[in-house]
C-alpha cells in the first residue's frame, strides 16, 4: 500500500529526482566529450547538457580541479534543495546519505591537523554535503577522547564513535582504523533503518548497502596486505550487513594474499564474476572499476521501482560516478594522454 501513501509527502521530490536523473549524461554525450581536444571544448559540450552554463564565470585557462569543484557544487545544490523540502522519514534517509561524507570530512580534518595544516585550507577541501557546524573546532583535540567530548558529541555521528574512542592517540595507522570503524557503524545503522522502513525501499537499499559492505570488506583486506594491521584488528573493521557475513568475513579475516581473497569470492556468484573479469594487466579492468560498474548497475535498477526512497540514494551515487567520469575524461584531455580515455564507466 506504499503506492497509495508515498506521494502524500514525497511525490513531488520523487518527480524532481527522476527529472534530475533524466539529465545524467548518456552514451552520446560521453562520445562527444571523448572527442574534445581541449578543456574549452569540454566546457562547450557540457553546455548542451543539463549542466548548461555552470562554468560560465570561471576565468580561462580552465583547470580540472575547477571543473571538479563546480560539478560537485551542482550536485550539492540539487541535494540540498531536496533535503530542504523533505519531511520525515525521507529527511532522516537523506541525512544518512550525508553521514558518509561527514565521516570523510572528519578524517580529512584530523589528518590535516596532524600535519599542521591550517584549518581554513582544510575546510575548503571538505565535501560540502558532509559539512556540520563544529568543523572548525576539530583542531583543538589531540586524542580521540578529547575530540569526541569537545566536538563530535553534538554531531549526528556521535553514536558511531563508541567503538573507537578507546584508541590511544591519533597517528597515521589509527586514523584509518577510526575511519573504517566509523564507516562500519554508520553502514550497519543505515542498513537497519532501511530494513525497518520496509517495502521497496528495503528491497533496493538493503541490496545496495550489502554490496557496499562487502566491497569495503574486500578492499580493506586487499589493502591491509603488507601493513602492520593484525588479522584480528582487520576482522573488527568488516561491516556485518553484507552477504559475506558471517562465513565470508571469517574466511577473509584469515586471508593472507590476493589469491585467497579471490578464493573467498568464489563462493558468491556475483562477486565471483567481478573478480574473474579483473586484473592488473593492461587491457583488463581493475577490481575497483568492476566494483564501480556493479554499483552503477544496482543504482540504475533502483530507478525501476516507484514509490521508494532508494531513488535518492541512487541519484547521489550516479551523480558521483558521472563526476568521476567527467574528471577522468578532463584529465586525459588536459594531459593529452588519450590511450585510456575510454575507461570511464557508462551509466545509461
Amino acid at each position: 500500500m506504499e503506492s497509495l501513501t508515498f506521494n502524500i509527502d514525497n511525490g513531488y521530490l520523487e518527480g524532481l529526482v527522476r527529472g534530475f536523473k533524466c539529465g545524467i549524461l548518456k552514451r552520446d554525450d560521453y562520445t562527444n566529450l571523448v572527442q574534445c581536444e581541449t578543456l574549452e571544448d569540454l566546457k562547450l559540450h557540457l553546455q548542451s547538457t543539463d549542466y548548461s552554463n555552470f562554468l560560465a564565470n570561471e576565468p580561462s585557462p580552465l583547470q580540472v580541479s575547477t571543473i571538479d569543484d563546480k560539478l560537485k557544487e551542482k550536485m550539492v545544490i540539487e541535494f540540498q534543495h531536496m533535503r530542504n523540502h523533505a519531511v520525515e522519514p525521507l529527511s532522516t534517509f537523506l541525512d544518512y546519505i550525508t553521514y558518509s561524507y561527514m565521516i570523510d570530512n572528519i578524517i580529512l580534518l584530523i589528518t590535516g591537523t596532524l600535519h599542521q595544516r591550517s584549518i581554513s585550507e582544510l575546510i575548503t577541501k571538505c565535501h560540502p554535503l558532509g559539512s556540520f557546524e563544529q568543523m572548525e573546532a576539530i583542531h583543538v583535540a589531540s586524542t580521540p577522547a578529547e575530540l569526541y567530548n569537545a566536538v563530535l558529541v553534538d554531531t549526528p555521528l556521535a553514536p558511531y564513535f563508541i567503538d573507537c574512542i578507546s584508541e590511544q592517540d591519533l597517528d597515521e595507522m589509527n586514523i584509518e582504523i577510526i575511519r573504517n570503524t566509523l564507516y562500519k557503524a554508520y553502514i550497519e545503522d543505515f542498513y537497519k533503518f532501511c530494513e525497518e522502513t520496509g517495502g521497496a525501499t528495503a528491497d533496493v537499499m538493503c541490496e545496495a548497502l550489502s554490496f557496499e559492505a562487502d566491497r569495503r570488506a574486500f578492499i580493506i583486506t586487499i589493502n591491509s596486505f603488507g601493513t602492520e594491521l593484525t588479522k584480528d584488528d582487520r576482522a573488527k573493521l568488516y561491516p556485518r550487513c553484507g552477504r559475506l557475513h558471517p562465513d565470508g568475513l571469517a574466511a577473509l579475516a584469515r586471508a593472507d594474499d590476493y589469491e585467497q581473497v579471490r578464493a573467498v569470492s568464489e563462493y558468491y556468484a556475483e562477486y565471483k564474476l567481478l573478480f574473474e573479469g579483473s586484473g592488473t594487466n593492461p587491457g583488463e579492468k581493475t577490481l575497483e572499476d568492476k566494483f564501480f560498474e556493479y554499483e552503477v548497475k544496482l543504482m540504475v535498477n533502483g530507478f525501476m521501482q516507484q514509490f521508494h526512497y532508494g531513488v535518492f540514494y541512487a541519484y547521489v551515487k550516479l551523480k558521483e560516478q558521472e563526476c568521476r567520469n567527467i574528471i577522468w575524461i578532463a584529465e586525459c584531455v588536459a594531459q593529452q594522454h588519450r590511450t585510456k580515455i575510454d575507461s570511464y564507466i557508462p551509466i545509461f
Partner: protein
Amino acid sequence: MGYLAYYSGTSVVLSVLTLVGLYYLLTDQGYRVDFGWFLEETSPYMWAYIGCSMAIALSVIGAAWGILVTGTSILGGGVQAPRIKTKNLVSIIFCEAVAIYGIILAIVMSNIVQKYPSDADDDVIAANYAAGYKLFGAGLTVGFSNLFSGLAVGVVGSGAALADAANPRLFVKILIVEIFASAIGLFGVIVGILQVSNAKMGEAAGAN
C-alpha cells in the same frame, strides 16, 4: 508492534462476540437475536440515505486520492520537463470523472426517495422497504467501485507522468492502461443504475 495491536484487538472483539452469542444460546434466549426484527424496525429512509451518502462520499474519496497521487508526480516531473504539464491533466480528468459518476448516482437516488404513510397497504410498505435496500446496495456498489477506480487511475497516472517526463513516446501507451482503470468505475455506475431502476418509494409504490 502494529501486529500486536492488530491481533490483540481482533481477538478481543471476536471473543466478546462469541461469549455473548454463547450466552444467548445457552440460556435459551436465542430467539432474542432477531435479524428480522432489526430489518423491520429500521426505516427504509435510513438505508436509502446511507446508500446515497456512500455513493458520493466514497467516489469523492477515490477521486481525491487519485488526484493527489497523480498531481504530486506531475508537479515533480514538470520541474525538469515542463512539456508534461498540459498533457498529463488528462490523468486528473480521469480521476475527476469518477467523482462525477458518484454525484450522478447520488442525485438519481435522492430523487427516488419519497414520503409514504405508515398506515398504507402491505404491498406499498413492502415496495418502500425494497426500495430502501436497493438504494443502499446501489450506493455501496457505486461508492466502492469508484473508490478503487480512482485509486487505480491515480497510481497509473503518477507512473504515466514520470514516464512521460523521461520519454515522450510512452505517454499514449500508458494512457490506455488508465482508460481500462477508469472503465471499472463505469461498470460500477452501470450496475448501480440497474439496481435503482425499479426502486420506487411513496404512496404509489405498490402499484405495478
